[in-house]
């Protein structure tokens, strides 16, 4: 009799272990996989152990099995709790169908750890448009960026931000590239399928892709009409793949890149809004303008100089950009030893490029996280894209809602 019970326990334990493994293999994100692994895993192992104890049916076996099962019941919740917390803090991506994040604002969420998915880029030229000039404009002293890249990511306020940045930055001779991107990795996530299985999952992904393409096309049409009515020289492109990589490649051939703040290239179809905002705030390219929906012509420019080499090079790149040359430029430094000389030199360089420049008070200290009242009132903050020392100071600036230019 105990043999039958043991056999049944063994079979059910192994079945539940198998179900746990299927869950780990099939569920869409780390948190759901953990749900399968810990609960079903501990029941599967526990039932198997009980089966073994029934089969041996000696005091020694029972003692050991009881010990192991009790031990598993105590430790597995602890270890899975620690893993889940670490995964959350580590920024493991959540399935796009997640409806509730109760730890939002309670725990910090840091950089994403997923592999950079090597995606094949599909370039589909849409064609050139705009007023036909015949010849390229003759080169002369540039008063505006010569080539401007508009990254068309749909989301709340994206069109307004893009239009405003064109009006602010583009001159009559600026060549504008409208780059419509589709981020396939973020759109490709599938979820657990209650009914219909993988087929239904594919259908969902296809529907999401179709919606994202529609949104991208509608935004592209909108921007095309705007550029035509305003008479910009512009070209259009559409690409699909890993959006971060593609954007980096395209931005390398342009002076100024504009990305609407808080949007990403899933066109608000796959990622949660806050997550999309994080993605766009994490892009770090020289000459990237993160434009907020309320972006308007700034009254002044503030350059955040950190007194190091990276900041000085960033300032030189920025001065070469011919971005709003008539606006007063304030160079504000970090309150650090040895930064003084670098700041004097930086001001001298800007003055030699005939910029109305003056040195701001050294109000930024890396130990003070948000000393930024001067940058919010109508001034555009410019920060080095790759800086070393003032990370704490300007990270808060990048995470603000306001527009920021990376140099």
């Amino acid at each position, binding site marked *: 009799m105990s*043999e039958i019970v043991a*056999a*049944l326990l*063994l*079979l059910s*334990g*192994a*079945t539940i*272990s*198998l179900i*746990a*493994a*299927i869950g*780990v293999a099939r569920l869409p994100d*780390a948190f759901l*996989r953990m749900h399968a*692994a*810990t609960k079903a*895993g*501990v029941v*599967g*192992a526990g039932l*198997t*152990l009980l*089966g*073994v104890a029934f*089969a*041996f049916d*000696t005091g*020694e*076996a029972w003692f*050991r099995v009881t*010990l*192991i099962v009790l*031990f*598993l019941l105590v*430790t*597995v919740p602890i*270890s*899975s709790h*620690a*893993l889940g*917390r*670490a*995964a959350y*803090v*580590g*920024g493991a*991506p959540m399935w796009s169908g997640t409806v509730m994040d109760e730890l939002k604002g309670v725990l910090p969420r*840091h*950089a994403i*750890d*997923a*592999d950079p*998915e090597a995606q094949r880029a599909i370039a589909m030229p849409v064609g050139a448009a705009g007023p036909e000039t015949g010849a390229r404009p003759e080169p002369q002293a540039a008063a505006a960026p010569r080539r401007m890249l508009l990254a068309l990511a749909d989301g709340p306020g994206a069109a307004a931000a893009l239009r405003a940045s064109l009006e602010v930055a583009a001159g009559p001779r600026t060549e504008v590239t409208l780059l419509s991107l589709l981020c396939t990795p973020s759109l490709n996530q599938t979820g657990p399928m209650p009914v219909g299985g993988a087929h239904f999952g594919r259908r969902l992904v296809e529907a999401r892709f179709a919606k994202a393409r529609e949104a991208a096309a509608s935004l592209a049409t909108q921007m095309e009409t705007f550029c035509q009515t305003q008479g910009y020289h512009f070209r259009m492109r559409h690409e699909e793949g890993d959006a971060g990589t593609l954007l980096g490649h395209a931005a390398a051939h342009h002076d100024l890149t504009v990305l609407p703040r808080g949007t990403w290239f899933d066109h608000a179809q796959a990622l949660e809004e806050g997550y999309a905002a994080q993605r766009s705030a994490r892009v770090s390219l020289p000459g990237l303008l993160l434009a907020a929906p309320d972006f308007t012509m700034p009254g002044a420019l503030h350059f955040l100089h950190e007194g190091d080499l990276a900041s000085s090079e960033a300032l030189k790149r920025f001065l070469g950009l011919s971005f709003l040359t008539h606006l007063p430029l304030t160079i504000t430094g970090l309150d650090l030893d040895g930064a003084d000389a670098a700041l004097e030199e930086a001001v001298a360089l800007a003055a030699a490029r005939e910029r109305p420049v003056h040195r701001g008070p050294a109000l930024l200290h890396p*130990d003070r996280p948000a000393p930024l009242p001067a940058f919010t009132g109508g001034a555009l903050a410019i920060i080095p894209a790759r800086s*070393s020392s003032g*990370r*704490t100071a300007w*990270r808060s600036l990048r995470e603000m809602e306001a527009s920021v230019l990376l140099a």
Partner: protein
Amino acid sequence: MSFLTVALIFSALMVAVAVGLTGWRMLHGPGIADRAVAMDLLGLLAVAATALVALGGGYLALLDIALGLGLVGFIGAVGVATFIKRASEPPEDQDV
């Protein structure tokens, strides 16, 4: 073959398939958190597999090894969790 032997063979096969699936997830990732979860489950599956081997061979002492495996899995999972957490924190002010 008794019913118990058949059940033992089938259970071992199912656990083997489970180890295969979990190992695939561990190799495939995509993130370190996914791998850590797979490792956690592999620890539990190892406990189950050791228990099955103990029954199949009649070695009662293997149950002690199952206990040890459970302990190692627990400590490993907590260690990896601590590592993920530390590694993900941005290097604040290290050079100031």
